[in-house]
């Protein structure tokens, strides 16, 4: 077990290193941020002065070393655009992203799981078809389209909800639904397939043969087991929701990490993009590491095989 954990931690550190290197190189491929912080037509001297200020005139390897070192010292540098410490920006936005992700996740589970169960129980029926349509739309409609459609209906036409911003529950509803729909669709699909698999299993057949009421068979015996993969997926999705709600947060001017990333990319704010991606990536690597370790604890075959 000890060797297994050490190996997994090693893989995680390697993943983190590769992630940091990739994002470091990728942001620099996109171009020079100095040219975006001056008006078109600014003199070369002005551009050079900004490049010097940001340390972009240093050799690449020096810049990478400073970037890696910053993670160990906890000082991730200053945003080129905001000129304030990147970590301050990150932690200012994190609570908003956590709130949005939590509500969107709750919506996605409340909608996705019951409809998935219903679709599995009534395979080929109306609810199954309705569920398929819901899934199809949720997975295929781009979130900016859903967001703008909601604004058109609930803000412009009905005047019920504010178009953007944060602060009240009314501000949260449209972005949470827009973000949650996609994941509700994913949760619904998984619940449906998982339920169908469980409903076809021997122990469910036995429960039915014993004459248990159908509600008890579904609710107690099938549903509990079918829920395990959905909850695992939901856990990973929650991390994803926190970090990738870029479009939703931009459409609704929701001040979360996704918008910070969008601003970072827009202004080629390297420290912001690097920090958001590496912290987001670290969360996913950490969750995967914990899941790996938990699986190994639960199932000895996993650690023996590896």
């Amino acid at each position, binding site marked *: 077990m000890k060797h297994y954990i050490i190996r997994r931690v090693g893989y995680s550190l390697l993943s983190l290193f590769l992630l940091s290197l990739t994002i470091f190189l990728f942001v620099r491929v996109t171009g020079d941020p100095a*040219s975006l912080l001056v008006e078109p037509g600014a003199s*070369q001297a002005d551009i050079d002065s900004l490049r010097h200020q940001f340390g972009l005139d240093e050799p690449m390897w020096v810049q990478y070393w400073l970037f890696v070192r910053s993670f160990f010292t906890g000082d991730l540098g200053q945003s080129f655009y905001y000129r304030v410490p990147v970590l301050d920006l990150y932690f*200012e936005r994190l609570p908003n992203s956590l709130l949005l992700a939590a509500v969107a996740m709750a919506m996605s589970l409340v909608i996705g799981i019951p409809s998935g169960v219903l679709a599995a129980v009534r395979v080929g029926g109306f609810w199954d078809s309705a569920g398929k349509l819901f899934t199809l739309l949720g997975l295929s409609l781009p979130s900016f389209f859903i967001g703008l459609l909601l*604004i058109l209906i*609930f803000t412009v*036409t009905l005047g019920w909800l504010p178009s953007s911003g944060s602060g009240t529950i009314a501000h949260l509803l449209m972005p949470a639904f827009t973000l949650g729909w996609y994941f509700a669709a994913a949760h619904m699909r998984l619940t449906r397939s998982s339920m169908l698999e469980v409903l076809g299993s021997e122990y469910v057949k036995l429960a039915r043969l014993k004459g248990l009421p159908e509600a008890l068979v579904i609710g107690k015996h099938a549903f509990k087991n079918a829920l395990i993969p959905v909850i695992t997926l939901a856990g990973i999705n929650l991390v994803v929701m926190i970090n990738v709600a870029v479009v939703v947060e931009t459409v609704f*001017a929701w*001040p979360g990490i996704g918008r910070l990333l969008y601003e970072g990319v827009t202004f080629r704010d390297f420290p912001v993009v690097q920090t958001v991606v590496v912290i987001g990536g670290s969360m996913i690597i950490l969750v995967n590491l914990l899941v790996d370790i938990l699986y190994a604890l639960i199932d000895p075959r996993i650690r023996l095989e590896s």
Partner: protein
Amino acid sequence: MLRKTESGSPSRLSRRDVMALSALGIVALGQRTAMAAGADGQLTWAVHVSLAPTWFDPAETPGIITPFMLLYALHDAMVKPMPDKAAAPCLAESWKMAPDGLSYQFTVRAGAKFHNGEPVTAEDVKFSFERYRGTSAAMMKERVKAVETPDARTVNFVLKEPWPDFLTFYSSASGAGWIVPKKYVEKVGDEAFKKAPIGAGPYKFVSFTPGVELVFEAFDDYWRKPPTVKRLVFKVIPEEATRLAALTRGEVDIAYSIRGELAEQLRKTPGLTLKAVVIQGPYWIYFADQWDPKSPWHDQRVREAVRVAIDHKAISEALTLGFSPITNSIIPENFEFFWKPPPAVYDPKKAKELLAAAGFRSGFDAGDYYCDSSYSNVAEAVINYLQEAGIRVKMRPLERAAFYAGYSQKKLKNLIQGASGAFGNAATRLAAFAVKGGAYAYGNYPEIDELYAKQEAELDVAKRTELLHRAQQYIHEHSVYAPIWQLAFLNAHGKRVGESGLGLIKGHAYSAPYEDVTIKK
């Protein structure tokens, strides 16, 4: 619960509506959201960019116009562009240049105060200049030998050599002339200053939530006049359609940057007013290969054909509802020393004749047309007109940073759709785009270089104006460039707004001066 019908009158929701929305759990909310713009004495802006705390500090003003959106509220400058003048006396009551051009003396306005009640003094002016580390800092400090403060209200800027553009840079092209309180900054430090800035402008800082909103409150002791609107709120709404929705619903009073079809929609919406502001950003086509005798662009007739082949007005109508003026120049019309050229002509027949005279009776394959991809809609329109005249080009849109890097490194060829929003005056623009060695000049004409060199040493404004006019005239007559338009920035306001401040200051994209902004009675 009410909604508006097509006729605008409120009607009850149908049962189907209620059922559909109940399913989404929205009706259960049972409340209308508070309207931000409802409070008396408050105006709310929907801004298109994220506001950066660095913009609260004039010392860090970069080379873009956006920070001036906030500087005009929070701070004040010795001399700055105002509705009546490009260089209006503000914290400086007056100024004068020494006859030898080697020094400028400013008199600080009596009674001007910072938000903490302390008077603005000569020491603050000196401190603010020395502290300035924005885009033009190196160049300004290289040319200024010393800043002297013989008394509390007198400041002398001593130059190393006569510099006719000193006032241009001090008043509008940098943040060096925007004054911060020396004692307060020294006491709290730079970082704390950005968190709780104090200035001498018409509005005081109240709160800032990064990425969300910024709140200012009126400073009643502002020297020019007390502001009439009590509170200003700037909300960041990056998505254009959301800004328009917020304006339509009355969540905000003024919205920046509403373009294209949304602007058309806005114009049709009752109660909303479209306000176009012409910024200091002309667009043009540059003939990068005109100095190569083998290139078709070497022939002035071919360059002229491009100029007359484009229907500038139609492009402006289609893309900016006709608000982008056809100035026919690469120099913004609000710039000092601007020479007004004859109006642009659209004459496709003449374009073909010129091409035929140059030996291209059937037109020609003219190669690449480079542009900043965010303005590829302008390029598409231009290319269509060129195509009609027989000038067949391929559009090469490049991402903005790559485009300007390629442009300044002189890597682009053939035709370049350029633009500039940089600060300065006609001389600074010529230096960058038309004079030998200019950052964006792919070649030079000795006549322009000579006129430019003469004006650089000329302290007499009238003579300098004449030299710069002649240089611009040369560019026009020799079709060094084919100007397209001067870009208009489309904004809008709702019905509560009396004076929006939009367009009061020429070339300024945002509301200003804020003390002139009013709410309708």
